[in-house]
């Protein structure tokens, strides 16, 4: 691949530096998580003194992070590849609504899952075609899709909440495997698959190359257009999976579901260390980003604090994370110049 031009020792050193950087950042996020939990223990010692409640609480935090976590994995790929996908919430709504129409439900759980996944991929492909072959800016193309997909979802659902009558789908969110909710297993699988895809395959290397330096990637023989197309399809697929998870949790779907998921997913990816300009990012960091948000929601709920304050804290964390990222990035480039 492209890195073959650099001598092996330089390549290794660069890799190690990137690795260290990621580990430090992830440790920082783990620190934030621990801090949030400690605040929870201090403010609500009565709740945290019950081990069953504590175990349940962690599983709940994970479960509530699972759908948005899956979306964030797809979003992380898109952002590393130099793009952005503002339409994820809308794709979830469209996939969810399409999968729960009376006609689709008559095909059973398999039909519903198939529909959600295919709709997700297809919308992602449309995004990809508009961006790579239509030469639209990702921001504009996916913003247009955000509006259009929700519109189509409202059209299909007749603006009604479509209740899922399928027990298999509804039980996904209620059931556990080895004491861990099924949705958390799905999140684990998607994260594992995303990690392998990004770190252990040429697809992952190409994603980093396309986002980091598109011109160099093109000269190295990467088909940038096709790769970009695939990235948006991947994000669409993740949205399809999330649509099934969310439909299962709410036992229903509607055109207004997954409201503002795009912002949560982008924010989680960013505080997880993904560079908004592309070329760098980690799946594990993104997962921690999602968990930080989910834990904040939990902390504010158990203390009965208003969601207004919660949103302010969320905003503060995003700004802080990006500031730290910029600072680190700048000091790193200065270090390299020296």
């Amino acid at each position, binding site marked *: 691949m492209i890195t073959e031009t650099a001598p092996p020792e330089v390549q290794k050193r660069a890799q190690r530096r990137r690795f260290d950087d990621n580990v430090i950042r992830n440790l920082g996020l783990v620190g934030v998580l621990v801090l949030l939990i400690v605040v929870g223990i201090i403010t609500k010692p009565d*709740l945290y003194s*019950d081990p069953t*409640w504590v175990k*349940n*609480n962690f599983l*709940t935090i994970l*479960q*509530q992070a699972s759908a948005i976590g899956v979306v964030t994995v797809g979003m992380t790929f898109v952002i590393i590849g130099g793009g952005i996908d503002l339409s994820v919430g809308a794709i979830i709504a469209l996939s969810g609504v*399409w999968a729960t*129409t*009376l*006609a*689709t439900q008559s*095909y059973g759980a398999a*039909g519903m899952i198939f*529909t959600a996944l*295919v*709709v997700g991929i*297809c919308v992602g492909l449309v995004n990809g075609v508009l961006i790579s072959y239509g030469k639209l800016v990702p921001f504009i193309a996916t913003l247009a899709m955000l509006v259009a997909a*929700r519109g189509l*979802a*409202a059209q*299909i*659902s*007749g*603006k*009604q*909440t*479509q*209740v899922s009558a399928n027990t298999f789908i*509804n039980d996904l*969110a*209620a059931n556990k495997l080895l004491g861990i909710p099924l949705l958390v297993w799905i999140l684990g699988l998607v994260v594992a698959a995303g990690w392998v895809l990004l770190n252990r395959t040429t697809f992952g290397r190409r994603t980093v190359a396309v986002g980091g330096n598109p011109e160099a990637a093109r000269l190295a023989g990467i088909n940038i257009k096709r790769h970009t197309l695939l990235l948006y399809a991947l994000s669409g697929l993740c949205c399809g999976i999330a649509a099934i998870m*969310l439909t299962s*949790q*709410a*036992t*229903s*779907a*509607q*055109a*207004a*579901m*997954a*409201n503002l998921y795009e912002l949560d997913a982008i924010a989680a990816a960013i505080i997880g260390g993904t560079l908004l300009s592309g070329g760098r990012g980690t799946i594990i960091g993104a997962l921690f980003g999602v968990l930080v948000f989910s834990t904040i*929601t*939990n902390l504010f*709920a*158990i*203390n*009965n604090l*208003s*969601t*207004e304050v919660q949103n302010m804290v969320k905003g503060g964390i995003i700004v802080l994370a990006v500031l730290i990222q910029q600072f680190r990035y700048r000091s790193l480039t200065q270090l390299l110049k020296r």
Partner: protein
Amino acid sequence: MSALSRRRVLFGGAAVGAGALLTACTSNTPENNAQVNTNTDASANPNAAPGQKVTIGFSAPAADHGWLAAITNNAKAQAAAYTDVEFKPVEAGADAAAQRAAVSTLISQKPTVIVMLPHDGKELNAAGLEAMKAGIPVINLDRAFPSMAAYRLQIKGDNFGMGLAAGNYIVEQLKAKGVSNPVIGEIPGIDSLELTQERSLGFKTALEANGFKVANRRPAEFTADSGQAAATALLQALPKMDALWNHDDDQGIGVLAAIKQANRSEFFMVGGAGSKAAIDAIKADNSVLKATVTYSPSMASSAISLARLIGQGKGLSELVELQVPKEITLASETITKDNASQYAKLGF
């Protein structure tokens, strides 16, 4: 080359096949459960006799919510029940500005009356005034205009009363059970809306009058998935609860799902609005949902009926006055197992 084209044919075929299946999957058989005033028999009700032709312009927000969908459906169905009414709906668009533009267009078409459910009463107040100035009586539906000059008739639900009714029902039930110092949860809808604040104030007032208070309050967004998230957080915060009021039956689908997923049943729940699914569940009595307080979209049907009377210059037969009154606030009713069958036709 031939292998490539074969692959293309295969992929293309798969795509077309998937597309065809998906197209087959979009059809939704619409359920017809519009709430129509069926008192249109002229021999029993002189007001129902066909009279002067009335054109009713109608504008309501196109939001993705069961209640608003029911508002529009009801208005359409009620208008269709009269032979002397021409129904002219305009899309209100996504926000107050779009609705203002739509109403201006509507005014220029000179309908006999306009029925308007504004995005926001304050922001559309000017549009109401404009129509009234043009000599078109305005029926202000649900979200109130601040200026009394902006409408001929205001017909709305009672948000404060809804909270009050939910609170009173919960107090009554807890007292009957002999629970002192109960843990009460609340799941409102979008918290920044005035209607949500009025509902919460009514709820608080009823509880405080009896020395009770809300232990935890987690707002959702009127959608099932946000209801699920809010309820999950609430249940986690309150390991033991006695009663729960959820403001909206549409988000209640998610709230009930969360309760089931958390395996909880030690409390009872009161809903809000009065959806068909909620009324059915209360009647079946197989979940924690024991009651719901109404905020019925049937008000749209009533608004159309009254708009027709205003257009024809007729009054309400039960009243001495010769014209329709200026303001009507509907009472919020409490639906329980005992009267659920009676209310089934009002569910949306």
